[in-house]
C-alpha cells in the first residue's frame, strides 16, 4: 500500500468511525427497549457499536501494513482532475438552477457547458444536443412517460 493510499484509508475509516460514534449517541437518545421489546434505537445502537469495532480493527490493520514509498497519487491531477470536477460542478449547478428556472433551461445550460468543457467545440453540435437533451427530453418524459419534471417559469 502506498503512503497516499494508506492516508486515504485511514481518513476514510476514521470518518466512518466518527459517523458510527455519532449514531451511537443518537440511538441512545431513542429508547433501546420498551415494554413491547426492542425500541427504535435498539438495532441502530448495536449496529453502530459493531461499526466502531470494525472501524477500530481496520485502522489497526491499515496502520500495521508496510508502506511502499512511491509517487503514486490517489486522486487525479491536471486535465483528469478538471474533467472530474467539472462534472461534479455541472450537476450541482444544474440542480440549483432547476429549482429556479425549471428542467428545460437548467438542462440547456448544463448540456452546453458540460459538452464544451469535455472537449466538443462545434457550436451547432452543442446547440442541437442541448436542445434535444433539454426540451426534447422534457417533452418525452412528461408527455410520453408521465414522469413529472420541474416545470419552467412559463408553465401555468
Amino acid at each position: 500500500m502506498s503512503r497516499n493510499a494508506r492516508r486515504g484509508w485511514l481518513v476514510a475509516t476514521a470518518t466512518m468511525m466518527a459517523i458510527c460514534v455519532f449514531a451511537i449517541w443518537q440511538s441512545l437518545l431513542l429508547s433501546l427497549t420498551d415494554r413491547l421489546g426492542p425500541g427504535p434505537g435498539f438495532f441502530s445502537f448495536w449496529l453502530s457499536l459493531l461499526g466502531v469495532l470494525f472501524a477500530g480493527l481496520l485502522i489497526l490493520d491499515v496502520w500495521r501494513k508496510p508502506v511502499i514509498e512511491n509517487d503514486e497519487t490517489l486522486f487525479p491531477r491536471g486535465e483528469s482532475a478538471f474533467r472530474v470536477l467539472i462534472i461534479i460542478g455541472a450537476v450541482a449547478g444544474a440542480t440549483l438552477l432547476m429549482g429556479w428556472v425549471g428542467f428545460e433551461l437548467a438542462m440547456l445550460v448544463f448540456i452546453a457547458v458540460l459538452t464544451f468543457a469535455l472537449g466538443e467545440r462545434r457550436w451547432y453540435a452543442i446547440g442541437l444536443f442541448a436542445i434535444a437533451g433539454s426540451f426534447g427530453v422534457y417533452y418525452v418524459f412528461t408527455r410520453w412517460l408521465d414522469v413529472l419534471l420541474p416545470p419552467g417559469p412559463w408553465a401555468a
Partner: protein
Amino acid sequence: MESLGYLMAGLGAALSFNNLLFAFAGCVLGTLIGVLPGLGPAAGTAILIPLTFNLDATGAIIMLCAIYYGAMYGGTITSVLINVPGEAASVVTCIDGYQMAKQGRAGSALAIAAIGSFVGGIVATILLVVVAAPLASLALKFGPAEFFALMVAGLCLVVGLAGRNILAALLMTALGLLLSLIGMDPVRGAPRFTFGVEELYDGIGFVPVVMGLFGVGELLLAAEARQTHLIQADLKKWYPTRDEWRRSSGAIGRGTVIGFVLGLIPGVGAIVPTFMAYVLEKRVSKNPERFGKGAIEGVASAETANNAYANGSMVPLLALGVPSSPTIAVLMGAFIVNGLTPGPFLFQEKPELVWTVIASFFVGNVLLLILNLPLVGLWARLLKIPFAYLCTGVLIFCIIGAYGLKQSLFDVWVMLGFGVLGYVLRKLDFPIAPAILALILGPMMEKSLRTTLEISGGSFAIFLDRPLALALLAVPLIVLAAIVVRPRAFANLRQTDIE
C-alpha cells in the same frame, strides 16, 4: 405441474404486445449499456429506472430484467472488439475474444458468445422454473427468526466473498444498514436520524443512492481515465465454422452448469463463474496452449457462464427475497418501488406477475439472440460516440431518475453526494457491494429481528430453539471465520469488488 400451468399463462402474458415491447426495449437499452465501456449492469439498470416509473409493475420489472441480461451480453462486444470489458464479468472474454478479433475472427467470437449466452440463459431459466417455486414454498414456512437468519446469511456471504479486506466489507455493511434506518421506525413509527429534515422522514431513497454510487461514481472514474479505442473488427463473416462449433459445444454445456450453480450463492459476483468456466475449459482441453491466443471455447465458456449466472441469480431474489449482487439489489429496489416485495409471498400473492417475469426471461433471451447476431456491426459503431455526449447523456438520465420518483431536488443532491462518495470509495478500493445489499435489506432485517425478539420477550435464545434459523446463522458465520483464518483456500471465489 402447477408451476408449468402458471409458466404457460406467464408465457402468454409475456408475449402480449406491451410486454414484448418492454422486453425488446430492455434488451436494446441493456445491450447499449453493456457496449459502452465504464457503465456496468448495476449502473445501467439504476440509471434506466426512470423509464419505468409509470409503467405497470409487470412491464417495469420485465424491462429492467431485460436491461440486466442485455447489459451482461453487451459487455462482450467491447471485450472482443477493443479489448475493454463493457462490464466486469466480460474481463475473461477479452483474453481470447480480442485475439480472435486480431486474427479476423471477431464475427465468430461474437456469434458464439451470443449463442452461448442464449443457451446458458434458456437452460438457466428452465432450472429457475424447476428450483424457484419449491424453494419459495419452503420459505413460506419461515418465521421472522428464519428470515432474519437468512438475510444475515446472505450478507455474510457477500461480505466474505466481496472484497480483499473483510474488515472493510463488514464496516461498509454496518454503514449500509445504518443508512437504511434513516426515517420512520417501521415498528413504532418514531422518526430516527432525521434531524428535522422533512425529506428524510421517508428515508434515504434507494434509487438516488444507487444512481450516485454506480451511475455518477462510475462516470467520474471513466472521466478521469478517458481513452480512445481502436476497433479490431471484421464482421462480414460471423457464422462459426464446423470446427469452432465442435470446440464450443462442450464449453457451452459446462459454462451453463457453473454459471447457474454459482448464481444461486449470494456474494459470488458475475466474474467468478466466468473465470471458473474459463479455467475449467483450459484444464479439460487437449491443447491448453491455445488459450490466450484465440481459443473460441474460452469465449464460449465465459460468455455462457456469464448469462447462466445472470438468470441463476434470480432464484434467491424471487424465491427468498435475498439479492445476491448489487445489480440484483437494484432490481429488488425496482420491485419495491413498484409496491412489490420479492420473496416467497410474492409467489403466493402475485403468481401471475412472477411467472410472467420468469417467462419473459425466455422471450428476452430469444430477443437478445436476434438482436445480437445480425446487428453486431451496428453495436460496434456505438463505440465511436464521443465521451462528451455519452457522459452528458448518462448524467441527464441520472438527474431525471433521482428527481422523478418523488419529485424532489433533495434526492438529486443525495445522488450527487453518493456519486462523489462512490468515486472516492472506488479510488480507495473500498468494497461498495456489501453497503448496497445492506441498504436494501436493512429495513426487513430490523423488522424481522425486532418481531422475533418481541415474540421471545427480548431473549436471543429463540434462535437456539429454531434449528433452521440457527443453521442459517451458523453456516455463513463459519464460512466467514474460515475465510478470515484461511484466506488462501477461498482466493478463487473472492474478488476485489462485485461488478
